[in-house]
């Protein structure tokens, strides 16, 4: 593992959490960084909706998002087991345990994944979600990767408790619902932008994230304003170079 990238990532994550930030954007950043830092091909993050079901809130790729959704819809898979037990679940070779998840294992194979590591997001006794790491090649996960992965999952948990102290379950539930609704606003904004500029959904999402960063706005606020028509996102266009470049990182804390 790249030690400098690891320290950069944690500085970036904690910097982001110091000021007002967008939970969904933050969780996307966590899945993206998981892929960069760890020996994995994709990552997905599930959160428990108090209505009683899991929701996919972030994924590093469309394939990972669909595979997470597949588990929820078919009610089977390692990520669900991890969430229900509150314990990590590692599967080094999905093909070898296909009998355990007769629907999930072949679906993962079709999506190009051979191994999975699911890590619980825990808050005291409560399990609120899971961070799931997928790898294209079979084989055991590096224990160091698992430790860092769990730390990233813990950061995701803490990000839901932003701004206020955690004396009540009330705060967690408020933040969770707000985040889940932000997810919906962002999807609506992606659809509108994709249709307007003739983009696919991933391109539209990149453009929205980038615009939020450039203008130093919360992603969900920007998405809401765009959907409401109070912000036309002037300057964004499909042919510009913006869409192809990775989102710029937030400014670093000044060095010592």
């Amino acid at each position, binding site marked *: 593992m790249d030690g400098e990238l690891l320290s950069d990532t944690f500085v970036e994550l904690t910097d982001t959490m110091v000021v007002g930030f967008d939970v969904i954007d933050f969780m996307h950043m966590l899945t993206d960084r998981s892929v960069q830092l760890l020996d994995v091909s994709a990552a997905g993050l599930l959160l428990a909706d108090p*209505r009683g079901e899991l929701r*996919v809130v972030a994924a590093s790729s469309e394939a990972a998002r669909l595979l997470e959704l597949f588990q929820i819809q078919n009610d089977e898979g390692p990520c669900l087991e991890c969430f229900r037990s509150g314990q990590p679940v590692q599967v080094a070779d999905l093909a070898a345990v296909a009998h355990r998840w007769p629907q999930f294992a072949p679906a993962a194979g079709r999506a190009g994944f051979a191994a999975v590591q699911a890590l619980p997001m825990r808050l005291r006794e409560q399990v609120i979600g899971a961070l799931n790491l997928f790898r294209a090649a079979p084989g055991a996960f590096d224990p160091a990767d698992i430790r860092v992965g769990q730390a990233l999952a813990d950061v995701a948990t803490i990000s839901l408790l932003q701004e206020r102290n955690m004396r009540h379950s009330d705060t967690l539930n*408020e933040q969770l619902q*707000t*985040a889940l609704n932000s997810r919906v*606003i962002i999807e*609506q904004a*992606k*659809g509108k932008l994709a249709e307007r500029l003739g983009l696919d*959904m991933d391109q539209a999402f990149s453009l929205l994230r980038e615009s939020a960063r450039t203008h130093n706005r919360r992603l969900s606020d920007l998405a809401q304003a765009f959907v409401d028509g109070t912000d036309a996102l002037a300057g964004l266009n499909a042919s510009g170079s913006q869409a192809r470049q990775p989102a710029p990182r937030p400014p670093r804390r000044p060095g010592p």
Partner: protein
Amino acid sequence: MTDGRPARVWGLVAAQAARRGGPVSAADACVAAVAAVEVTGAWLIAARGAEAGHLMRVTDHASELLAELQMTLGEGPGPDAAASGGPVLASDLDEKEAVRRWPAFAPAACQAGAAAIFAFPLQLGAIRTGVMGLYRVRSGPLSAFHLGDALTFADTATLLLLDGQDQPAHAAGSAGAGPGGRPADLIRHRAEIDQATGMLTEQLGVGIAEAFIRLRAYAYAHDRGLSDLARDIVARHLRLSPDPDPRKDAQT
């Protein structure tokens, strides 16, 4: 059993409408929530987008007072829920934090007999249709089960408000049979439905709430599942066109 929740809540709302003797309305969701979630009373404010809205239903005198206090003072769990886009769960209004947050409203609410207030925005992403408030004379948080139910009552009220089944002109006894018939699809909704709704704002030149109404109306009229239809729109296999307007056609 989590799968049964939307259907169970819908059943309670429909039963309330039947008792009242009218088509299912968002007001029925507000009334039915009181017993199901074990609170003392409830109110429902219907609004379009970011406007202030109007008080549509209260279940007792105290809930009317609480709703009007919040609208007058402009502070309280209800206004905060509308502004933040998430529920505001004030399980003890007598607590320091609540008083600091709502210096005028919290003491007034306690005076009115409320010890806890739970406010739920009636929204689906950027679509906002109002706020549902619940109050209880006893302090303490909602149980996880009751919170899940309260959110589902709020989802149901949101869809009923969007369906416009609350307009007297629409009272053709079609309880549960319209495009909003089974609110379960809101819970089971997927990213594709939200993306398709966003796409329709551009295709049809309408606002986000209208786009969602049109998506559901199309699914209903063509007897298709909402997710299935949304996937076709997102994959660009299907485009919806604005309603043909004869006057416009004649002019151009």
